[in-house]
């Protein structure tokens, strides 16, 4: 937040401050209750062994060591990373293509935009069940199911996410494309640039801010994915490890954390909370990287 001169608000400032409790009170109280306290308690509990919060015993970093040694957690990390990158590329390429064609002044653009955006409003759980019905409807003809093979689960979730997110990213790209100065395109045309030259040399450099936003947005969306993952495959199928533990092969990070918290082993809550902190650092890191990157670009321009 940029700070104005200390006198900002001037004569207005003091009378408002008498009502601070009314204006700030409700949000501060709810925010402390719904975010600050659970967050701090979560950090503390990640350093404890506990079944219920009352019995928490401080044990230092053991939970973090256990989390990194947990094969299912590491698997879900790489699986999530792969998923996030593949979905990032597909969603953005397709969304940009659609946005590009929809801004060429073709007939029916508004209707098409409406349709492409629509799946974005349907909740993750419902989306998961719609697509699990569709995939199983196809796969049942080959006597298999989306729950039986990792690659079906992976590509199934990719298709689902493309269907949901393309419309969303498309909206951001359309806004970016419409902001490209008409004179620049005109100048390129007069200079005899071909369509593809104009696209790559004029249009794309001009929509770089939108591309940055969409890239980070789809990356964090991919990392944080939970509802769709739970409803489509719930992590199935699984393989049994030599040591008797099992790895759910299509389980992503958020679902892995959830299953560690609320699964069979009630003694693993501390490990689950440590995993959650690691997950938070990862997602927050992506957010900060985005911020740093956009700041840098703004300075350059």
């Amino acid at each position, binding site marked *: 937040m940029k700070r104005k001169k200390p006198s900002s608000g001037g004569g207005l400032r003091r009378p408002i401050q008498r009502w601070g409790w009314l204006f700030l009170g409700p949000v501060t109280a*709810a*925010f402390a209750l719904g975010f600050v306290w659970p967050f701090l308690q979560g950090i503390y509990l990640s350093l404890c062994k506990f079944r219920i919060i009352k019995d928490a015993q401080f044990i230092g970093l053991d939970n973090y060591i256990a989390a990194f040694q947990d094969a299912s957690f590491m698997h879900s990390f790489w699986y999530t990373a792969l998923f996030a990158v593949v979905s990032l590329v597909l969603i953005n390429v397709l969304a940009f293509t659609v946005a590009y064609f929809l801004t060429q002044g073709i007939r029916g653009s508004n209707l098409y935009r409406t349709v492409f955006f629509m799946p974005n*409003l349907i909740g993750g759980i419902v989306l998961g069940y719609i697509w699990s019905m569709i995939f199983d409807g196809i796969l049942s003809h080959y006597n298999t199911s989306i729950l039986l093979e990792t690659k079906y689960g992976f590509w199934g979730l990719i298709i689902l996410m493309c269907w949901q997110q393309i419309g969303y990213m498309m909206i951001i790209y359309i806004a970016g494309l419409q902001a490209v100065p008409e004179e620049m395109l005109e100048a390129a045309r007069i200079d005899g640039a071909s369509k593809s030259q104009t696209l790559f040399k004029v249009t794309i450099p001009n929509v770089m801010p939108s591309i940055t936003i969409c890239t980070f947005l789809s990356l964090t969306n991919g990392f944080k994915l939970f509802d769709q993952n739970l409803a489509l495959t719930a992590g199935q199928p699984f393989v049994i490890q030599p040591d008797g533990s099992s790895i759910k092969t299509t389980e992503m990070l958020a679902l892995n954390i959830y299953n560690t918290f609320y699964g069979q082993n009630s003694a693993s809550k501390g490990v689950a909370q440590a995993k959650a902190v690691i997950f938070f650092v990862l997602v927050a890191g992506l957010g900060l990287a985005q911020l740093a990157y956009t700041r840098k670009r703004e300075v350059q321009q």
Partner: protein
Amino acid sequence: MKEKNGLAAERRTKTILSVVLGIICVIYVLPVLTVVLNSFKLNTFVKTDTFSLPTGEMWAGFTNFIKGMTFGNYPFWKSVFYSTFITIVSTALILLFTSMAAWYIARVDSKFCRTIYYLCVFSMVVPFQMVMYTLSKTADSIGTGSTIGNLAAMLGIRVTGPAADVALLPLNTPYGIPIVYLGFGAGLAIFMFVGFVKSIPLEIEEAAAIDGCGPIRTYFSVVFPMLRPTMISVGILEIMWVWNDYLLPYLVLDINEYRTIPIHIQYLKGSYGTVDLGATMALILLSIIPVIIFYLLCQKHIIKGVAAGAVKG
């Protein structure tokens, strides 16, 4: 002559493009159409004949809908009521209180205000899994601990009778959960409102103050109406979030008593061995019809709101 050919060619390309995109659009709505088809199909055929019309022996009429409404011994209308109630009250709370706080933060700009603001921005990058366990436990213990009997006992007063069991802050019921949403969802809303308030010239409020308006009147009759565009954007984002949210209410509410629509659908599909797919599809159809109507009615606002949230968040 050449110019004319070029124009004709361009028009032809545009027509082809339009047709191709039209076909993709049709493919795009197929999943929803499949839901419609299967909600009228007998359960046994959903898996084997997913993509055929529900004709002849497959036709189930409205039995799936009737079955779905009472599925799992939980009346569907209750989930509809809870989902609607939680969404409306949470969104109203968030809009009212975060806009008030944002105005105060933007105008007073004290150390405390800046701390709150940065905490809010920070909360936007924290994934729900980080706080889900502790948040649900906090909501639970406050919900069960804030009964009149308990609070009175703290003051050394004994209260008995049914009034003693009434919770003052029932965070673990649909009536209190909007407070949890206000807390966890404050970040984005505060961020968007503060950004907007800073663009409002101070002179308007100063004029109101000179005319004798106190802060409360200044806020409600001068500032509040000016916040309309951001209110709509934030409101749309919150409605979409709360209506579709699954994990937070699932962890906070007692799901034997209170189920929102996503919880209900997940519960039916996730916890039984054999699932009546036809009835599930009927429920899914019922749950997306209001969303689609809402979308078609305020499409412009929704698209604008979502884009605003993306660019800023």
